[in-house]
Structure formats: C-alpha cells, structure tokens
C-alpha cells in the first residue's frame, strides 16, 4: 500500500524584510509519521510550523494538506485538518479549565452554543475524558491561571485532544518545563497522537527526547532543511554539523 502524503511542501519560502526565515523548502510527511524538528535557535523551525498550521502564509510555493491546497480550505476545514500546541501561554487564564478544554470544539460550534456552554458546559464528558487522558481530571472546574506550568500544558494537550485534528503540530511544547516533566508531556503527546492515528510534527530543543520518541528527525539551519533521516541513524557528526557556529566571532 502506498502511504498517504499528509503534508507536501513544494518550494516554500518565507522572509521577514531582509531576513530569509525559510528558503525554497520541499518536504513530504506521510500519514502517522512522528517527526521531530531540531536545529539551532532562529533556524526557521517556528516559521515552518507556523506555515504548516496555516497561521501564516508562505511567500512562494505550494502547501498541500491531505492533497488539498491549504489556501482553499475554510477555517473549519483547516481546524479539522491541523492543530498546534505551543508553550502554555496559549490558554485563557481567567477561564475555568473546562472551558479552555472545550474551546477545542469552537470550530464546530455556532456562536449561540459556545455562549451557552460558558454558562453550562456542553459536552462535559468530552472535557472529562480529555482531562482524564492527560491525568488531571480533578482540575476540571479550577481557574486555569491557578494551575502550574506543567498542568497548564496538559490542559493545552486536552484541548488538542478535543479538537482532534488529523495533523498535530507542536512548537517547543516543553521548553519551559524541567526535564522530568518535559519527558512526561512528550510521552503523552506521542501516545495520544499514536492512538488517534494522527500525524505528529514537533520542534524540540532536546535531542534526547527527539531520539527517544520520534521516528524521523529533520534538522533545520539558516532557513533550510539540512538533515532528514530516521532517528536511529542520527550520528554525533550530524549534530555537530547542525549546531556548529558558522561565525564563532559574532
């Protein structure tokens, strides 16, 4: 069976003023793959993920998501196809956890339904199940801003679980957590997406986590892909090349 091309990038470029954040990038990711993006800070990982999520548009090139041009998708269709998780700042602090989790449904819900849900939550079971999956079921009615960083990241995961997009993107999801918690969250992310038969693309600082949980590793440097291989084949030399400073005197 030929695996489905979930993500296909042809000649994608993006610049901000004079800075080339991403130059003529080509990339194919198949359904169910677990891809880790690694590389030095400012290499273009975030730009690539933002383009993949549809949050920004590329200057040139074509981005097909499940064989459809991303630009031709409606907001609702896009939300069903792709979702993203970042650091915990993505949550609405003054709302209760349940509403943050259920906001994963907003793309499907109409205005009236989403308003009524703020008074009396609809789909309470979805929220319960999602929170149970990430291990904080007891926090359902707490104020989100009262939760710790790790717990908030679990809430964001629960929202993604409710949204249930075909492609899950993660932009440095554990950058502000300690190593033990970071490992737990990534493990959870990988398990959840595996069970949901979702495709996962995550940018990570930790090579260790990338090798431990991901099947394919893509290295990005100066706005271009310079490494793309199965994680088992990743060598020390690859990493040295990727992270070496080109201009040590700067």
């Amino acid at each position, binding site marked *: 069976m030929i695996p489905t091309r979930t993500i296909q990038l042809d000649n994608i470029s993006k610049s901000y003023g004079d800075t080339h954040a991403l130059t003529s990038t080509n990339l194919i990711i198949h359904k169910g793959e677990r891809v880790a993006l690694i590389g030095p800070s400012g290499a273009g990982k975030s730009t690539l993920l933002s383009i993949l999520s549809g*949050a920004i548009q590329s200057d040139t090139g074509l981005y097909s998501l499940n064989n459809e041009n991303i630009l031709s998708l409606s*907001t609702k269709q*896009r*939300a*069903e196809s792709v979702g*993203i998780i970042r650091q915990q*700042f*993505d949550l609405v602090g003054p709302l209760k956890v349940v509403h943050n989790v259920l906001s994963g449904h907003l793309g499907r819900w109409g205005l009236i339904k989403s308003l009524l849900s703020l008074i009396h939550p609809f789909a309470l079971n979805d929220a319960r199940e999602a929170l149970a999956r990430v291990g904080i079921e007891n926090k359902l009615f707490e104020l989100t801003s009262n939760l710790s960083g790790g717990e908030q990241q679990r809430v964001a995961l629960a929202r993604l679980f409710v949204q249930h997009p075909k492609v899950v993107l993660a932009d440095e999801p554990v950058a502000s957590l300690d190593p033990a918690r970071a490992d737990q969250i990534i493990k959870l992310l990988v398990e959840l997406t595996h069970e949901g038969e979702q495709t996962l693309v995550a940018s990570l600082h930790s090579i260790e986590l990338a090798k431990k949980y991901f099947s394919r590793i893509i290295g990005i440097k100066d706005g271009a892909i310079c490494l793309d291989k199965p994680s088992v084949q990743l060598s020390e030399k690859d990493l040295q090349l990727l992270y070496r400073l080109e201009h040590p005197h700067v």
Partner: protein
Amino acid sequence: MFSNGPLTQQDKTRALNMSLSLLLILWGFSSVQWNSNLIHAGGAHTADQLIKALLHPALNKEILTRAFKAVGITLSYALTGMSLSLLFAFILGLIASGVLFENNRFKLLVKGTRHLLLFMRSIHELVWAWLFVAAFGLHPLSAILALAIPYGGTLGRIFSNMLQDVPKAPTNALSLVGASPLQKLFYVYLPYAIPNMVSYAMYRFECAVRASTVMSFVGLGGLGYEIQLSLNDLEYTEAFTYLYALILLILCIELWSNKLRLSPSLKLHKHWSIQRISIFGAALATALAWLYIHITEGVHLTDLFNEKNLKYTFKFLSGLLGVGDQTPAFLSWQAWHKALVLSLETLQMSILAILFAGLLALFFALPGSKYKMNQNSQGRRGKLNFLLYYLLRGVFIFSRAIPELVWAMMFVFLFKPGPLPGILALGVHNFGILGKLCAEVVENMDQAPLEALKTSGASAPQTLFYGILPLTLPKFITYILYRWEVIIRTSIIVGFVGAGGLGQAFKLSMSWFKYSEITLYLICYLVLIGGVDKFSNMLRKNI
C-alpha cells in the same frame, strides 16, 4: 536627569521643553492685574463668615433632612449616568478596539468610533449639561445624558485599551482551532478584560458622584444645587452642611474603593467577598436609582421626543448653526478676536492653576506620606510628623472633595470676578488630587536605592536629592501634566460663576440665547484642549 559631557539630542529636547514651559508660566502671570483691586470690598468680612461657617455648619433637623435627600438625588444621578455610560463605553469601546474585525473593510468604522469617543470626552459634563438643558429643558435625562456621554467617552477609551491589551497567544491559538471573532470575544477577550473593566468602573464612580454634584448646578436637584442656593442666599452655615455631606459621601466611596482595590477577595461574610458585594450592591443601587428617578421625576424616555421638545431642540440646534442670525458669531471677525483673547486667558488660567497646585503638592508630598512618618517615629519630632501627616491627608481630602466649581463660587465672594478666583479654585481642587497622588508615589517608591544611600552614610537632605527626588520627580511631573489636561477641560466650568475666561463668556451667551456664539466658543474650547493635550504629550515623552 542631568548628565555631564556632550549634549545628546534628548538633552537638547529637554532644555527646549524646559525653556518653553518657563516662558509659558511667565506669560501666564500676565493674565492677572496684580494690584490691590483684586480683593472684593467685603472680602475680608465674607472670609471671616465662611471660616465661622466652616467650624459651625447648620445642623438643625430641617437642613439635615434636606441634605440627606440631596445626597440621594446626587447618588441617583451618578448611578444612572454611570450605568448608561457603561453601556455606551462597552459598545463603542468594543468597536474602537477593533478586536471584532479581522479584515480592513471596517477600518473606517473603528477609526470613526475612536474619534467619536475622543469628542465625547473632550467636552466637560457641565458643558454637556448646559447644552442638553438648552435643548431639552430641565429634564432629569438631560443630567443623566450629560454625565453618560463624557464618562462613556473616557471609559470607552480605557475599555478599548483593555481589550487590545489582552494577550495575543491565546487569541491566535483559538484562531487556529477555528473560532470566529465573536467566539474569541467571549472565550478570550471578555474573560481577560471584564475584571479590569469592573474595577475601573468602580474607581470612576467616585468621580461620577462629584460630577453629578457639579451638574445639578444647571438647575437640576442635588447637593450642588443646594450648595448654590445657600451660597446665593448667603446662608454659609447651610452651605457647609451640604459640603460636609458631600465630603462624607466621597470619603465613604473612597474608603470602600480602596478596600476593593487592595484586597478584592477579602471575605466580609461566609460566601461574600468584598468584590462580590460591590458588584451586586452597585447593580442593586443602580436599579433603585433608575426607579427613584422614574417615580420622583416621572422620567419617560419618550418625553424627550415629544412635539414641544423636538421644536425646542430644533430651534436650539439651528441657533447653534447660526440659522436666522444676521451675522453668526463664527463668521464675524470681531467675535473671533474676542474668542481668541478669551481662549488665551483661559490657557493662562490653566497654567497658573497647575503651577499653584503642582508646587504646593510637591512641597507637601513628603510630609503627607507615610514614608516620613515611619522614618522619624520617635520623640517629639515623631509626634509632629504624625500630626502633620494626618493634618495634610485631611487637607488633601477636603480640597479635592469640593468640586472646583464650588470653590469658584466661594472665591468670587472673596475676590472680584475675573481670572484670579478661577485660578485659585482650579488650583486648590487639583492640589488635593495631586497631593494624594504624589504622596502615594513617595509611599510606593523603591526602597532599595534609599537603603543603599543610607548605608553609605548619606544625610537626610543628601538622601532627598540623590535618592527620593530622582526616584519620584518623573512620576510627579507626569501626574502634573496629566492634571493640566484635566484643568484645561474644567477651566470653562469655573468661568460659569464669573471666574474669567471662555466660561464666563459662554454663560453670558447662553443667558442671552446667542447660540452662534456658543458654537464659536465650543470650537475654541476643543482646539484649546487638543493643543494642550498635544503639548503635554510632547513634554511627557521627554521627561
């Protein structure tokens, strides 16, 4: 603030600003003819009587009942006006913030709403009141609208800023989940902004009570009206009863809002935090106030639009536009010349008033703050500081609780009508406000640098010049400039009772139904306000 070595661009700008300000101040002094002719013939005697009345306000049952009733009316107008202004502010602020519109098609609407808010808050509530009374007659809704419009303008801008300050990350996250702008409003913007909106509205309520007092001056009932009547009848002891009632009212609101600001979740009862009580209490009081005005004054919205009123309104509006006037004032060179002279006089008044208020406040900020008291708490010196602190705090409250208009009414008894009583009225009221603000700046200043200075052996005066002043002066100046912007708006008000400037002329034109002159003065007033705002902004950027 001062640097040696080559002058930077900023140094030059500062030097230029400072010389400009000094020139303006010197020019301001020319507004008053400084001679013995300033004082009213019976001024000394009146002053004596006023001081006696200050110490012995009338306390008989009849006056107290009247005062109690007047407090009720003043509060009702404040609450109804405030509730309507919140409605205006919420709707207009939401549009002006632009958070609902993601494409550029609505750019013009957003911009237009911002300008509308600016216009609403540029005109002082008492001027609005005059205009509405001229258009609709002495109708309670004139007062309610006169309060609701400028307050709606101010609150609307603050609300729109609060909506814009909501963190971007959660908003973007929900966009990617597929949420519509309206869904984002309810799931992100409002949860973040509403607590801030509520606490800001509570804070503004104190100002609304003062404004409602002033507004009754145009002939609508309430504390201001009673004060005016007593002063006109030379019943000073009664006037002070009403004044004390006003001060007490303001003091209560201030104490409550301080508690609310500092510890909103303090529980007064098992389930009732101070915040919850305030919100429910305010809602209940507002409902009662509407009911009260509806019953006692028989307010019906439809009243405003009956045939007779429409005719008057039309007549007033066409009068403003100069219809039927042979030479409308705004087309006459002579009238423009007069208006220009008056505008300059108003500007001079505002400069002297802020100078007076600012210098006094700077001088008393330190002894008026807890800082000084805590420094020397032992011995006789400590007792003196203690006494001075409470005395000054009392003076601050007294001088700011009394609206500038009422101060002006009293000062025109002591001094001859003209700019001087206006300057003093504006100065005294703003001294109270600035004194409080500056004392709070001193209390909140960073202690670490001061401790460091003390450990290195600095004396008290050395600490003042090397620590306290550099730490606090920029904030003082910011507050002073901000109050100057408020003063230029109120300068027209004190003129209404004969204290000089544009206001005096405005009142005369109003009395003689020369409505096209009103238009001219309003134009000058708006230009003056715009100019002062611009200049003060420029100064503030380079502190």
